Protein backbone atom coordinates (compact mmCIF):
# COMPACT_ATOMS: atom_id res chain seq x y z
CA UNK A 1 0.00 0.00 0.00
CA UNK A 2 2.86 2.36 0.82
CA UNK A 3 4.32 1.79 -2.63
CA UNK A 4 0.92 2.27 -4.31
CA UNK A 5 0.45 5.48 -2.31
CA UNK A 6 3.83 6.70 -3.54
CA UNK A 7 3.25 5.71 -7.18
CA UNK A 8 -0.21 7.28 -7.32
CA UNK A 9 1.09 10.53 -5.83
CA UNK A 10 3.78 10.53 -8.52
CA UNK A 11 1.10 9.91 -11.14
CA UNK A 12 -0.89 12.92 -9.89
CA UNK A 13 2.22 15.10 -10.18
CA UNK A 14 2.80 13.83 -13.73
CA UNK A 15 -0.84 14.53 -14.62
CA UNK A 16 -0.47 18.16 -13.54
CA UNK A 17 2.45 18.50 -15.94
CA UNK A 18 0.43 16.87 -18.75
CA UNK A 19 -2.47 19.26 -18.06
CA UNK A 20 -0.24 22.32 -18.33
CA UNK A 21 1.40 21.02 -21.52
CA UNK A 22 -1.93 20.13 -23.13
CA UNK A 23 -3.57 23.51 -22.50
CA UNK A 24 -0.47 25.40 -23.62
CA UNK A 25 -0.38 23.37 -26.86
CA UNK A 26 -4.09 23.97 -27.48
CA UNK A 27 -3.99 27.72 -26.79
CA UNK A 28 -0.91 28.18 -28.97
CA UNK A 29 -2.60 26.24 -31.79
CA UNK A 30 -5.79 28.28 -31.45
CA UNK A 31 -3.84 31.55 -31.53
CA UNK A 32 -1.96 30.43 -34.63
CA UNK A 33 -5.19 29.33 -36.34
CA UNK A 34 -6.88 32.68 -35.66
CA UNK A 35 -3.76 34.51 -36.77
CA UNK A 36 -4.08 32.57 -40.01
CA UNK A 37 -7.41 34.33 -40.64
CA UNK A 38 -9.86 31.83 -39.17
CA UNK A 39 -12.85 32.81 -37.06
CA UNK A 40 -13.83 31.05 -33.88
CA UNK A 41 -17.55 31.08 -33.08
CA UNK A 42 -19.67 29.45 -30.41
CA UNK A 43 -21.23 27.27 -33.09
CA UNK A 44 -17.81 25.94 -34.07
CA UNK A 45 -16.85 25.32 -30.44
CA UNK A 46 -20.08 23.43 -29.70
CA UNK A 47 -19.87 21.47 -32.96
CA UNK A 48 -16.71 19.90 -31.49
CA UNK A 49 -15.20 19.46 -34.95
CA UNK A 50 -12.46 22.10 -35.09
CA UNK A 51 -9.32 21.29 -37.03
CA UNK A 52 -6.09 23.01 -36.08
CA UNK A 53 -2.78 21.89 -34.72
CA UNK A 54 -3.07 21.47 -30.96
CA UNK A 55 -6.88 21.29 -30.81
CA UNK A 56 -6.61 17.87 -29.13
CA UNK A 57 -5.04 19.62 -26.15
CA UNK A 58 -8.46 20.96 -25.13
CA UNK A 59 -9.98 17.47 -25.18
CA UNK A 60 -7.03 16.01 -23.26
CA UNK A 61 -7.21 18.79 -20.64
CA UNK A 62 -10.98 18.30 -20.23
CA UNK A 63 -11.03 14.49 -20.16
CA UNK A 64 -8.00 14.29 -17.91
CA UNK A 65 -9.22 17.01 -15.58
CA UNK A 66 -12.82 15.92 -15.23
CA UNK A 67 -12.47 12.15 -15.34
CA UNK A 68 -9.02 10.60 -15.16
CA UNK A 69 -7.42 12.82 -12.49
CA UNK A 70 -10.48 12.71 -10.17
CA UNK A 71 -10.49 8.91 -10.54
CA UNK A 72 -6.80 8.71 -9.69
CA UNK A 73 -7.43 11.06 -6.76
CA UNK A 74 -10.22 8.84 -5.39
CA UNK A 75 -8.13 5.67 -5.70
CA UNK A 76 -5.21 7.57 -4.17
CA UNK A 77 -7.41 8.63 -1.23
CA UNK A 78 -8.53 5.05 -0.60
CA UNK A 79 -4.98 3.71 -0.90
CA UNK A 80 -3.70 6.48 1.40
CA UNK A 81 -6.27 5.57 4.05
CA UNK A 82 -5.20 1.94 3.83
CA UNK A 83 -1.49 2.87 3.89
CA UNK A 84 -1.82 5.02 7.00
CA UNK A 85 -0.85 2.18 9.36
CA UNK A 86 2.43 1.57 7.55
CA UNK A 87 3.03 5.22 6.80
CA UNK A 88 1.66 7.63 9.42
CA UNK A 89 0.42 10.84 7.80
CA UNK A 90 -0.47 9.10 4.52
CA UNK A 91 -4.20 9.49 5.17
CA UNK A 92 -3.79 13.15 5.94
CA UNK A 93 -1.82 13.82 2.77
CA UNK A 94 -4.28 11.70 0.79
CA UNK A 95 -7.15 13.80 2.13
CA UNK A 96 -5.40 17.09 1.40
CA UNK A 97 -4.46 16.10 -2.15
CA UNK A 98 -7.96 14.79 -2.83
CA UNK A 99 -9.42 18.06 -1.54
CA UNK A 100 -7.06 20.07 -3.74
CA UNK A 101 -8.09 18.04 -6.81
CA UNK A 102 -11.77 18.56 -5.97
CA UNK A 103 -11.10 22.30 -5.65
CA UNK A 104 -9.24 22.20 -8.98
CA UNK A 105 -12.21 20.64 -10.78
CA UNK A 106 -14.56 23.17 -9.19
CA UNK A 107 -12.29 26.06 -10.25
CA UNK A 108 -11.84 24.58 -13.73
CA UNK A 109 -15.59 24.51 -14.32
CA UNK A 110 -16.41 27.77 -12.56
CA UNK A 111 -13.76 29.82 -14.37
CA UNK A 112 -15.91 29.58 -17.52
CA UNK A 113 -18.44 31.69 -15.64
CA UNK A 114 -16.21 33.64 -13.24
CA UNK A 115 -13.14 34.30 -15.36
CA UNK A 116 -11.18 35.86 -12.51
CA UNK A 117 -10.89 32.37 -10.98
CA UNK A 118 -8.67 31.22 -13.86
CA UNK A 119 -5.39 32.34 -12.17
CA UNK A 120 -6.42 30.46 -9.02
CA UNK A 121 -6.96 27.34 -11.15
CA UNK A 122 -3.37 27.65 -12.36
CA UNK A 123 -2.07 28.39 -8.86
CA UNK A 124 -3.89 25.44 -7.33
CA UNK A 125 -2.45 23.26 -10.13
CA UNK A 126 1.07 24.16 -8.97
CA UNK A 127 -0.10 23.45 -5.41
CA UNK A 128 -1.24 19.96 -6.37
CA UNK A 129 2.08 19.33 -8.09
CA UNK A 130 4.05 20.48 -5.04
CA UNK A 131 1.91 18.49 -2.58
CA UNK A 132 2.18 15.38 -4.76
CA UNK A 133 5.98 15.67 -4.89
CA UNK A 134 6.18 16.17 -1.10
CA UNK A 135 4.03 13.03 -0.70
CA UNK A 136 6.32 11.01 -2.97
CA UNK A 137 9.40 12.18 -1.05
CA UNK A 138 7.89 11.46 2.38
CA UNK A 139 6.96 7.95 1.23
CA UNK A 140 10.44 7.44 -0.22
CA UNK A 141 12.06 8.72 3.00
CA UNK A 142 9.91 6.40 5.12
CA UNK A 143 10.88 3.48 2.89
CA UNK A 144 14.58 4.32 3.24
CA UNK A 145 14.23 4.55 7.04
CA UNK A 146 12.25 1.33 7.38
CA UNK A 147 14.10 -1.86 8.41
CA UNK A 148 14.89 -4.02 5.42
CA UNK A 149 13.03 -7.29 5.44
CA UNK A 150 15.39 -10.27 5.49
Amino acid sequence: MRKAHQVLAGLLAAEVVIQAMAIAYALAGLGHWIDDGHTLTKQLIDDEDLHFQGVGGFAIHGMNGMMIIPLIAIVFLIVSLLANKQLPGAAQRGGILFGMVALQVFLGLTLHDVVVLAPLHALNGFGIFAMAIVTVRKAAAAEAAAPVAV
Partner: protein
Amino acid sequence: MTRRLRTLLPLALAVALVLGLGWMWQQSRLPGSYSVMDMGYDDLGGGPSMAGMAGMHDVSLTSLVADPQRSADVTVTLTARKERLRLASGEQVDGYTVNGSSPGPTIRAVEGQLVQVTLVNASVPDGVTLHWHGVEVPNAEDGVAGVTQDAVARGGSYTYRFVANHAGTFWYHSHQVSHAQVRGGLLGALVVTPRAPLPTRDVLALSHVYGGQLTVNGHVGSDTVPARPGEHVRVRVLNTDNGSLRAWVSGSPYRLLAMDGYDLHGPTEVTDRSVLVTAGGRADLEVVAPARVELGGSHLVVGADVPALPQPARTLDLLGYGTPAPLGFDPDHPDRRFRYSVGRRPGFVDGKPGMWWSINGHLFPDVPMFVVAEGDVVRMTISNHSRATHPMHLHGHHAVVLSRNGTRATGSPWWADSIDVASGQTYEIAFVADNPGIWMDHCHNLPHAAQGLVAHLMYEGVRTPFRVGHEGNDPE
Protein backbone atom coordinates in the same frame (compact mmCIF):
# COMPACT_ATOMS: atom_id res chain seq x y z
CA MET B 1 -7.50 2.88 22.46
CA THR B 2 -6.77 6.17 20.67
CA ARG B 3 -3.97 4.51 18.74
CA ARG B 4 -6.26 1.68 17.72
CA LEU B 5 -8.88 4.22 16.63
CA ARG B 6 -6.24 5.99 14.58
CA THR B 7 -5.50 2.75 12.77
CA LEU B 8 -9.09 1.64 12.34
CA LEU B 9 -10.66 4.96 11.35
CA PRO B 10 -8.80 5.30 8.02
CA LEU B 11 -9.55 1.63 7.27
CA ALA B 12 -13.25 2.13 7.99
CA LEU B 13 -13.26 5.27 5.85
CA ALA B 14 -11.61 3.41 2.97
CA VAL B 15 -14.15 0.58 3.16
CA ALA B 16 -17.05 3.07 3.34
CA LEU B 17 -15.68 4.93 0.30
CA VAL B 18 -15.29 1.75 -1.76
CA LEU B 19 -18.74 0.47 -0.81
CA GLY B 20 -20.38 3.87 -1.36
CA LEU B 21 -18.82 4.34 -4.79
CA GLY B 22 -19.65 0.75 -5.77
CA TRP B 23 -23.27 1.26 -4.73
CA MET B 24 -23.52 4.54 -6.69
CA TRP B 25 -21.99 2.87 -9.75
CA GLN B 26 -24.38 -0.08 -9.54
CA GLN B 27 -27.45 2.15 -9.02
CA SER B 28 -26.60 4.30 -12.04
CA ARG B 29 -26.54 1.46 -14.56
CA LEU B 30 -29.33 1.57 -17.13
CA PRO B 31 -31.24 -1.54 -18.16
CA GLY B 32 -30.90 -2.72 -21.77
CA SER B 33 -34.19 -1.07 -22.62
CA TYR B 34 -36.56 1.13 -20.64
CA SER B 35 -39.72 3.16 -20.98
CA VAL B 36 -39.38 6.88 -20.31
CA MET B 37 -42.55 6.50 -18.22
CA ASP B 38 -40.44 4.61 -15.67
CA MET B 39 -37.70 7.23 -15.58
CA GLY B 40 -37.05 9.20 -12.42
CA TYR B 41 -39.87 10.47 -10.26
CA ASP B 42 -43.18 12.21 -10.85
CA ASP B 43 -43.22 15.95 -10.26
CA LEU B 44 -46.84 17.08 -10.02
CA GLY B 45 -45.93 20.76 -9.75
CA GLY B 46 -48.47 21.29 -6.98
CA GLY B 47 -51.30 19.93 -9.10
CA PRO B 48 -53.53 17.00 -8.24
CA SER B 49 -52.01 13.54 -8.41
CA MET B 50 -52.91 11.14 -11.15
CA ALA B 51 -56.33 9.74 -10.29
CA GLY B 52 -55.66 6.24 -8.96
CA MET B 53 -53.41 3.70 -10.56
CA ALA B 54 -56.12 1.75 -12.42
CA GLY B 55 -56.64 3.16 -15.88
CA MET B 56 -53.98 5.77 -15.24
CA HIS B 57 -52.30 5.31 -18.61
CA ASP B 58 -55.38 4.64 -20.66
CA VAL B 59 -54.47 6.32 -23.95
CA SER B 60 -51.56 5.12 -26.06
CA LEU B 61 -49.81 8.06 -27.70
CA THR B 62 -49.98 6.13 -30.98
CA SER B 63 -53.65 7.19 -31.12
CA LEU B 64 -52.72 10.89 -30.91
CA VAL B 65 -52.63 11.55 -34.65
CA ALA B 66 -54.04 13.97 -37.21
CA ASP B 67 -57.49 13.19 -38.64
CA PRO B 68 -56.86 9.91 -40.54
CA GLN B 69 -59.84 10.58 -42.84
CA ARG B 70 -58.42 13.86 -44.09
CA SER B 71 -56.37 13.75 -47.26
CA ALA B 72 -52.98 15.43 -47.41
CA ASP B 73 -52.48 18.86 -48.97
CA VAL B 74 -48.70 18.65 -49.11
CA THR B 75 -47.07 15.28 -49.80
CA VAL B 76 -43.33 14.80 -49.58
CA THR B 77 -41.01 11.79 -49.56
CA LEU B 78 -37.70 12.28 -47.78
CA THR B 79 -34.98 9.67 -48.24
CA ALA B 80 -32.20 9.65 -45.67
CA ARG B 81 -28.72 8.37 -46.46
CA LYS B 82 -25.42 8.20 -44.66
CA GLU B 83 -22.84 9.23 -47.22
CA ARG B 84 -20.14 11.66 -48.20
CA LEU B 85 -21.98 14.81 -49.12
CA ARG B 86 -21.10 17.61 -51.45
CA LEU B 87 -22.03 21.04 -50.09
CA ALA B 88 -23.76 23.50 -52.40
CA SER B 89 -20.42 25.29 -52.73
CA GLY B 90 -18.57 22.13 -53.79
CA GLU B 91 -16.77 20.96 -50.62
CA GLN B 92 -17.19 17.30 -49.64
CA VAL B 93 -17.69 16.12 -46.05
CA ASP B 94 -18.86 12.91 -44.36
CA GLY B 95 -22.41 13.15 -43.12
CA TYR B 96 -26.04 12.48 -43.87
CA THR B 97 -28.26 13.60 -46.73
CA VAL B 98 -31.98 14.02 -47.24
CA ASN B 99 -32.96 13.42 -50.88
CA GLY B 100 -29.29 13.59 -51.80
CA SER B 101 -28.39 16.89 -50.19
CA SER B 102 -27.90 18.62 -46.89
CA PRO B 103 -29.69 20.70 -45.85
CA GLY B 104 -32.55 18.57 -47.17
CA PRO B 105 -35.37 20.01 -49.25
CA THR B 106 -37.32 22.88 -47.74
CA ILE B 107 -40.90 21.83 -47.09
CA ARG B 108 -43.38 24.64 -47.70
CA ALA B 109 -46.99 24.58 -46.58
CA VAL B 110 -49.79 27.08 -46.07
CA GLU B 111 -51.25 27.46 -42.60
CA GLY B 112 -53.99 24.89 -42.07
CA GLN B 113 -52.72 22.43 -44.68
CA LEU B 114 -52.17 18.80 -43.81
CA VAL B 115 -48.56 17.84 -44.42
CA GLN B 116 -47.72 14.21 -45.10
CA VAL B 117 -44.07 13.22 -45.14
CA THR B 118 -42.86 9.71 -45.85
CA LEU B 119 -39.40 9.14 -44.42
CA VAL B 120 -37.40 6.41 -46.13
CA ASN B 121 -34.17 5.14 -44.61
CA ALA B 122 -31.99 4.17 -47.56
CA SER B 123 -28.67 3.67 -45.77
CA VAL B 124 -28.45 5.03 -42.23
CA PRO B 125 -27.12 2.10 -40.15
CA ASP B 126 -28.32 3.41 -36.77
CA GLY B 127 -31.87 4.11 -37.99
CA VAL B 128 -33.53 7.51 -38.36
CA THR B 129 -36.60 9.53 -37.36
CA LEU B 130 -37.83 13.03 -38.14
CA HIS B 131 -38.71 15.50 -35.41
CA TRP B 132 -40.63 18.65 -36.40
CA HIS B 133 -38.80 21.21 -34.31
CA GLY B 134 -41.19 23.89 -33.06
CA VAL B 135 -44.31 22.46 -34.68
CA GLU B 136 -47.13 21.47 -32.34
CA VAL B 137 -47.67 18.13 -34.07
CA PRO B 138 -49.86 15.39 -32.56
CA ASN B 139 -47.67 13.40 -30.19
CA ALA B 140 -47.44 10.29 -32.39
CA GLU B 141 -45.77 12.43 -35.10
CA ASP B 142 -43.10 13.95 -32.85
CA GLY B 143 -40.38 11.67 -34.19
CA VAL B 144 -38.52 10.80 -30.98
CA ALA B 145 -37.04 7.30 -31.18
CA GLY B 146 -38.02 5.21 -28.18
CA VAL B 147 -40.65 7.70 -27.01
CA THR B 148 -43.10 8.31 -29.88
CA GLN B 149 -41.94 5.68 -32.39
CA ASP B 150 -39.28 3.10 -33.14
CA ALA B 151 -36.31 4.30 -35.18
CA VAL B 152 -36.78 3.57 -38.89
CA ALA B 153 -34.28 0.86 -39.77
CA ARG B 154 -32.39 0.65 -43.06
CA GLY B 155 -34.84 -0.24 -45.83
CA GLY B 156 -37.82 0.86 -43.72
CA SER B 157 -40.13 3.85 -43.96
CA TYR B 158 -42.48 5.83 -41.73
CA THR B 159 -45.17 8.36 -42.58
CA TYR B 160 -45.72 11.54 -40.58
CA ARG B 161 -49.01 13.45 -40.86
CA PHE B 162 -49.78 16.73 -39.18
CA VAL B 163 -51.68 19.93 -39.77
CA ALA B 164 -49.36 22.91 -40.13
CA ASN B 165 -51.53 24.94 -37.78
CA HIS B 166 -49.26 27.90 -37.27
CA ALA B 167 -47.47 30.05 -39.85
CA GLY B 168 -43.76 30.39 -39.12
CA THR B 169 -40.23 29.12 -39.54
CA PHE B 170 -39.57 25.59 -38.34
CA TRP B 171 -37.19 22.76 -39.16
CA TYR B 172 -37.00 19.02 -39.19
CA HIS B 173 -34.18 16.80 -38.00
CA SER B 174 -33.52 13.26 -36.91
CA HIS B 175 -34.19 12.45 -33.26
CA GLN B 176 -32.32 9.12 -33.38
CA VAL B 177 -28.66 9.34 -32.29
CA SER B 178 -29.39 13.01 -32.82
CA HIS B 179 -26.08 14.34 -31.53
CA ALA B 180 -24.36 12.67 -34.51
CA GLN B 181 -27.11 12.73 -37.16
CA VAL B 182 -28.10 16.39 -36.76
CA ARG B 183 -24.48 17.49 -36.72
CA GLY B 184 -23.93 15.38 -39.85
CA GLY B 185 -26.74 17.16 -41.68
CA LEU B 186 -29.89 15.03 -41.35
CA LEU B 187 -32.08 18.13 -41.33
CA GLY B 188 -33.96 20.69 -43.40
CA ALA B 189 -36.31 23.67 -43.13
CA LEU B 190 -40.09 23.70 -42.85
CA VAL B 191 -41.74 26.99 -43.75
CA VAL B 192 -45.42 27.53 -43.04
CA THR B 193 -46.83 30.65 -44.68
CA PRO B 194 -50.05 32.36 -43.63
CA ARG B 195 -53.25 31.97 -45.66
CA ALA B 196 -53.03 35.59 -46.77
CA PRO B 197 -49.87 35.98 -48.87
CA LEU B 198 -46.92 37.60 -47.08
CA PRO B 199 -46.30 41.22 -48.06
CA THR B 200 -42.62 40.46 -48.65
CA ARG B 201 -40.64 37.73 -50.33
CA ASP B 202 -39.13 35.31 -47.85
CA VAL B 203 -35.77 33.57 -48.06
CA LEU B 204 -33.84 31.21 -45.84
CA ALA B 205 -30.56 31.64 -43.99
CA LEU B 206 -30.06 28.16 -42.56
CA SER B 207 -26.86 28.06 -40.59
CA HIS B 208 -25.04 24.78 -40.06
CA VAL B 209 -21.48 23.64 -39.38
CA TYR B 210 -20.28 20.83 -41.63
CA GLY B 211 -16.89 19.31 -40.92
CA GLY B 212 -15.79 22.37 -38.95
CA GLN B 213 -16.95 24.82 -41.66
CA LEU B 214 -19.62 27.47 -41.11
CA THR B 215 -22.22 27.37 -43.87
CA VAL B 216 -25.38 29.19 -44.81
CA ASN B 217 -27.92 27.28 -46.94
CA GLY B 218 -25.17 24.71 -47.54
CA HIS B 219 -22.68 27.27 -48.91
CA VAL B 220 -19.42 27.65 -47.00
CA GLY B 221 -19.08 31.22 -45.70
CA SER B 222 -21.80 32.97 -47.65
CA ASP B 223 -24.81 32.64 -49.92
CA THR B 224 -26.51 35.25 -52.07
CA VAL B 225 -30.18 35.77 -52.85
CA PRO B 226 -31.25 38.24 -55.54
CA ALA B 227 -33.30 41.27 -54.50
CA ARG B 228 -34.14 44.63 -56.06
CA PRO B 229 -32.70 47.72 -54.34
CA GLY B 230 -35.28 48.92 -51.81
CA GLU B 231 -37.08 45.59 -51.72
CA HIS B 232 -38.19 44.37 -48.28
CA VAL B 233 -37.18 40.75 -47.73
CA ARG B 234 -38.04 38.42 -44.84
CA VAL B 235 -34.93 36.42 -43.95
CA ARG B 236 -35.67 33.28 -41.96
CA VAL B 237 -32.55 32.58 -39.88
CA LEU B 238 -32.40 28.98 -38.65
CA ASN B 239 -29.75 27.89 -36.18
CA THR B 240 -29.41 24.13 -36.64
CA ASP B 241 -26.19 23.86 -34.62
CA ASN B 242 -25.39 23.01 -31.02
CA GLY B 243 -24.25 26.52 -30.08
CA SER B 244 -25.99 29.89 -30.27
CA LEU B 245 -25.30 32.43 -33.00
CA ARG B 246 -25.70 36.17 -33.18
CA ALA B 247 -27.35 37.70 -36.22
CA TRP B 248 -27.15 41.33 -37.27
CA VAL B 249 -27.55 43.22 -40.51
CA SER B 250 -25.08 45.29 -42.53
CA GLY B 251 -26.34 47.95 -44.93
CA SER B 252 -29.89 48.18 -43.63
CA PRO B 253 -31.80 48.57 -40.39
CA TYR B 254 -33.91 45.53 -39.65
CA ARG B 255 -37.02 44.49 -37.82
CA LEU B 256 -37.28 41.23 -35.90
CA LEU B 257 -40.58 39.90 -37.18
CA ALA B 258 -40.70 36.54 -35.42
CA MET B 259 -38.88 34.26 -33.00
CA ASP B 260 -39.21 30.47 -33.07
CA GLY B 261 -41.97 30.70 -35.69
CA TYR B 262 -44.19 33.07 -33.72
CA ASP B 263 -44.67 36.67 -34.90
CA LEU B 264 -43.66 39.44 -32.52
CA HIS B 265 -46.20 42.21 -31.92
CA GLY B 266 -45.24 45.72 -33.02
CA PRO B 267 -41.62 45.06 -33.99
CA THR B 268 -39.59 48.27 -34.32
CA GLU B 269 -36.47 49.09 -36.32
CA VAL B 270 -33.16 47.86 -34.92
CA THR B 271 -29.80 49.28 -35.94
CA ASP B 272 -27.12 48.74 -33.34
CA ARG B 273 -27.93 45.40 -31.79
CA SER B 274 -27.56 41.75 -32.66
CA VAL B 275 -30.18 39.06 -32.16
CA LEU B 276 -29.25 35.99 -30.15
CA VAL B 277 -30.51 32.90 -31.95
CA THR B 278 -30.16 29.94 -29.65
CA ALA B 279 -29.30 26.44 -30.85
CA GLY B 280 -32.40 25.09 -32.57
CA GLY B 281 -34.02 28.55 -32.56
CA ARG B 282 -35.23 30.66 -35.48
CA ALA B 283 -35.42 34.42 -36.03
CA ASP B 284 -37.22 36.11 -38.93
CA LEU B 285 -35.59 39.42 -39.86
CA GLU B 286 -37.03 41.94 -42.28
CA VAL B 287 -34.27 43.72 -44.18
CA VAL B 288 -34.20 46.20 -47.05
CA ALA B 289 -31.97 45.27 -49.99
CA PRO B 290 -29.12 45.65 -50.51
CA ALA B 291 -28.12 44.10 -47.16
CA ARG B 292 -26.02 41.41 -45.57
CA VAL B 293 -27.41 39.26 -42.81
CA GLU B 294 -24.39 38.50 -40.66
CA LEU B 295 -24.43 35.21 -38.82
CA GLY B 296 -21.11 35.55 -36.99
CA GLY B 297 -18.70 33.75 -39.30
CA SER B 298 -21.03 33.31 -42.26
CA HIS B 299 -23.50 35.63 -43.98
CA LEU B 300 -26.34 35.93 -46.46
CA VAL B 301 -26.13 38.64 -49.11
CA VAL B 302 -29.55 40.04 -50.02
CA GLY B 303 -29.27 41.78 -53.38
CA ALA B 304 -25.92 43.47 -53.98
CA ASP B 305 -23.13 42.98 -51.45
CA VAL B 306 -22.50 45.76 -48.97
CA PRO B 307 -19.57 46.38 -46.59
CA ALA B 308 -19.77 44.22 -43.46
CA LEU B 309 -20.55 45.91 -40.16
CA PRO B 310 -18.68 44.60 -37.13
CA GLN B 311 -20.78 42.77 -34.57
CA PRO B 312 -22.73 45.27 -32.44
CA ALA B 313 -21.60 45.34 -28.82
CA ARG B 314 -25.16 45.07 -27.57
CA THR B 315 -27.80 42.37 -27.92
CA LEU B 316 -31.47 43.05 -28.60
CA ASP B 317 -33.36 42.23 -25.40
CA LEU B 318 -36.62 40.56 -26.37
CA LEU B 319 -38.07 41.25 -22.92
CA GLY B 320 -38.68 44.84 -23.97
CA TYR B 321 -39.00 44.56 -27.76
CA GLY B 322 -42.28 45.35 -29.52
CA THR B 323 -45.58 46.11 -27.84
CA PRO B 324 -47.70 43.99 -25.49
CA ALA B 325 -50.61 41.91 -26.74
CA PRO B 326 -53.04 39.52 -25.02
CA LEU B 327 -51.57 36.09 -24.22
CA GLY B 328 -54.85 34.23 -24.35
CA PHE B 329 -54.38 32.79 -20.87
CA ASP B 330 -53.52 33.94 -17.38
CA PRO B 331 -49.99 32.87 -16.40
CA ASP B 332 -50.38 34.38 -12.92
CA HIS B 333 -52.79 31.67 -11.77
CA PRO B 334 -51.10 28.46 -12.92
CA ASP B 335 -52.39 24.97 -12.18
CA ARG B 336 -48.83 23.62 -11.98
CA ARG B 337 -45.50 25.20 -11.12
CA PHE B 338 -42.34 23.36 -12.06
CA ARG B 339 -38.69 24.00 -11.36
CA TYR B 340 -36.12 22.93 -13.99
CA SER B 341 -32.79 23.69 -12.40
CA VAL B 342 -29.72 22.65 -14.38
CA GLY B 343 -26.51 21.99 -12.47
CA ARG B 344 -23.40 19.92 -12.83
CA ARG B 345 -21.97 17.50 -10.32
CA PRO B 346 -19.73 14.45 -10.02
CA GLY B 347 -21.36 11.05 -10.20
CA PHE B 348 -22.14 8.11 -12.41
CA VAL B 349 -24.45 7.95 -15.44
CA ASP B 350 -24.95 4.42 -16.74
CA GLY B 351 -21.90 3.30 -14.80
CA LYS B 352 -19.65 5.97 -16.26
CA PRO B 353 -17.98 8.34 -13.80
CA GLY B 354 -17.71 12.02 -14.62
CA MET B 355 -18.99 15.53 -14.09
CA TRP B 356 -22.59 15.22 -15.27
CA TRP B 357 -25.44 17.67 -15.89
CA SER B 358 -28.07 17.49 -13.18
CA ILE B 359 -31.76 18.41 -13.18
CA ASN B 360 -33.04 19.61 -9.78
CA GLY B 361 -29.92 17.98 -8.32
CA HIS B 362 -30.61 14.56 -9.85
CA LEU B 363 -28.62 12.77 -12.53
CA PHE B 364 -30.11 10.96 -15.54
CA PRO B 365 -32.26 8.86 -15.50
CA ASP B 366 -33.39 9.78 -11.97
CA VAL B 367 -34.81 13.08 -13.25
CA PRO B 368 -38.24 14.65 -12.77
CA MET B 369 -41.18 13.64 -14.94
CA PHE B 370 -43.24 16.82 -15.18
CA VAL B 371 -46.84 15.62 -14.97
CA VAL B 372 -49.70 17.76 -16.31
CA ALA B 373 -53.36 17.35 -17.19
CA GLU B 374 -54.81 18.64 -20.44
CA GLY B 375 -55.89 22.25 -20.08
CA ASP B 376 -53.52 23.08 -17.22
CA VAL B 377 -51.80 26.43 -17.17
CA VAL B 378 -48.17 25.57 -16.45
CA ARG B 379 -45.48 27.83 -15.12
CA MET B 380 -41.89 26.70 -15.19
CA THR B 381 -38.79 28.29 -13.70
CA ILE B 382 -35.71 27.29 -15.66
CA SER B 383 -32.46 28.12 -13.91
CA ASN B 384 -28.91 27.27 -14.77
CA HIS B 385 -26.06 26.84 -12.29
CA SER B 386 -23.95 24.55 -14.46
CA ARG B 387 -21.28 26.99 -15.67
CA ALA B 388 -22.30 26.35 -19.29
CA THR B 389 -25.10 27.69 -21.51
CA HIS B 390 -28.05 25.42 -22.31
CA PRO B 391 -30.51 25.99 -25.18
CA MET B 392 -33.59 24.45 -23.55
CA HIS B 393 -36.15 22.99 -25.95
CA LEU B 394 -39.66 21.83 -25.08
CA HIS B 395 -41.30 19.61 -27.69
CA GLY B 396 -44.88 20.09 -28.87
CA HIS B 397 -45.51 23.46 -27.19
CA HIS B 398 -44.58 27.10 -27.30
CA ALA B 399 -44.08 28.84 -23.96
CA VAL B 400 -44.26 32.55 -23.33
CA VAL B 401 -41.29 34.13 -21.56
CA LEU B 402 -42.47 35.97 -18.42
CA SER B 403 -39.18 37.11 -16.95
CA ARG B 404 -35.43 36.71 -16.89
CA ASN B 405 -33.52 37.04 -13.61
CA GLY B 406 -36.60 38.68 -12.12
CA THR B 407 -36.96 41.32 -14.86
CA ARG B 408 -40.45 41.00 -16.26
CA ALA B 409 -41.25 41.02 -19.98
CA THR B 410 -42.82 44.32 -21.01
CA GLY B 411 -42.75 44.10 -24.80
CA SER B 412 -44.39 41.81 -27.29
CA PRO B 413 -45.35 38.35 -26.08
CA TRP B 414 -42.19 36.31 -26.68
CA TRP B 415 -43.22 32.78 -27.54
CA ALA B 416 -40.36 30.31 -27.68
CA ASP B 417 -39.67 26.64 -28.13
CA SER B 418 -35.92 27.04 -27.64
CA ILE B 419 -34.55 29.33 -24.91
CA ASP B 420 -30.90 30.21 -24.41
CA VAL B 421 -30.33 29.86 -20.66
CA ALA B 422 -26.83 31.06 -19.79
CA SER B 423 -25.16 30.03 -16.56
CA GLY B 424 -26.46 32.19 -13.73
CA GLN B 425 -29.71 32.95 -15.53
CA THR B 426 -33.25 32.15 -14.46
CA TYR B 427 -36.17 32.25 -16.88
CA GLU B 428 -39.80 32.08 -15.93
CA ILE B 429 -41.98 30.73 -18.70
CA ALA B 430 -45.62 29.69 -18.97
CA PHE B 431 -47.67 27.65 -21.37
CA VAL B 432 -51.03 25.96 -21.71
CA ALA B 433 -50.91 22.16 -21.70
CA ASP B 434 -53.04 21.76 -24.78
CA ASN B 435 -51.27 19.01 -26.73
CA PRO B 436 -51.55 15.66 -24.94
CA GLY B 437 -48.66 13.26 -25.09
CA ILE B 438 -45.22 12.57 -23.72
CA TRP B 439 -42.88 15.35 -24.74
CA MET B 440 -39.16 15.75 -24.37
CA ASP B 441 -37.92 18.84 -22.56
CA HIS B 442 -34.17 18.87 -23.14
CA CYS B 443 -31.01 20.76 -23.93
CA HIS B 444 -30.55 21.30 -27.68
CA ASN B 445 -26.79 21.36 -27.40
CA LEU B 446 -27.27 17.75 -28.45
CA PRO B 447 -24.10 16.27 -26.89
CA HIS B 448 -25.43 17.65 -23.57
CA ALA B 449 -28.71 15.79 -24.15
CA ALA B 450 -26.73 12.63 -24.91
CA GLN B 451 -24.99 13.21 -21.56
CA GLY B 452 -28.35 13.13 -19.78
CA LEU B 453 -29.76 16.67 -19.87
CA VAL B 454 -33.20 15.31 -20.80
CA ALA B 455 -36.51 15.35 -18.94
CA HIS B 456 -40.08 14.81 -20.14
CA LEU B 457 -43.46 16.49 -19.87
CA MET B 458 -46.12 13.81 -19.47
CA TYR B 459 -49.86 14.27 -19.71
CA GLU B 460 -51.73 12.12 -17.25
CA GLY B 461 -53.55 9.27 -18.91
CA VAL B 462 -51.10 8.97 -21.82
CA ARG B 463 -48.76 6.01 -22.19
CA THR B 464 -46.13 5.01 -24.72
CA PRO B 465 -45.57 1.46 -25.97
CA PHE B 466 -42.06 2.38 -27.19
CA ARG B 467 -38.86 1.79 -25.29
CA VAL B 468 -35.45 3.43 -25.41
CA GLY B 469 -32.85 0.75 -26.15
CA HIS B 470 -35.40 -1.49 -27.88
CA GLU B 471 -35.13 -1.77 -31.71
CA GLY B 472 -31.93 0.26 -31.47
CA ASN B 473 -33.83 3.33 -30.19
CA ASP B 474 -31.36 5.93 -28.99
CA PRO B 475 -33.07 9.33 -29.17
CA GLU B 476 -30.05 11.43 -28.28
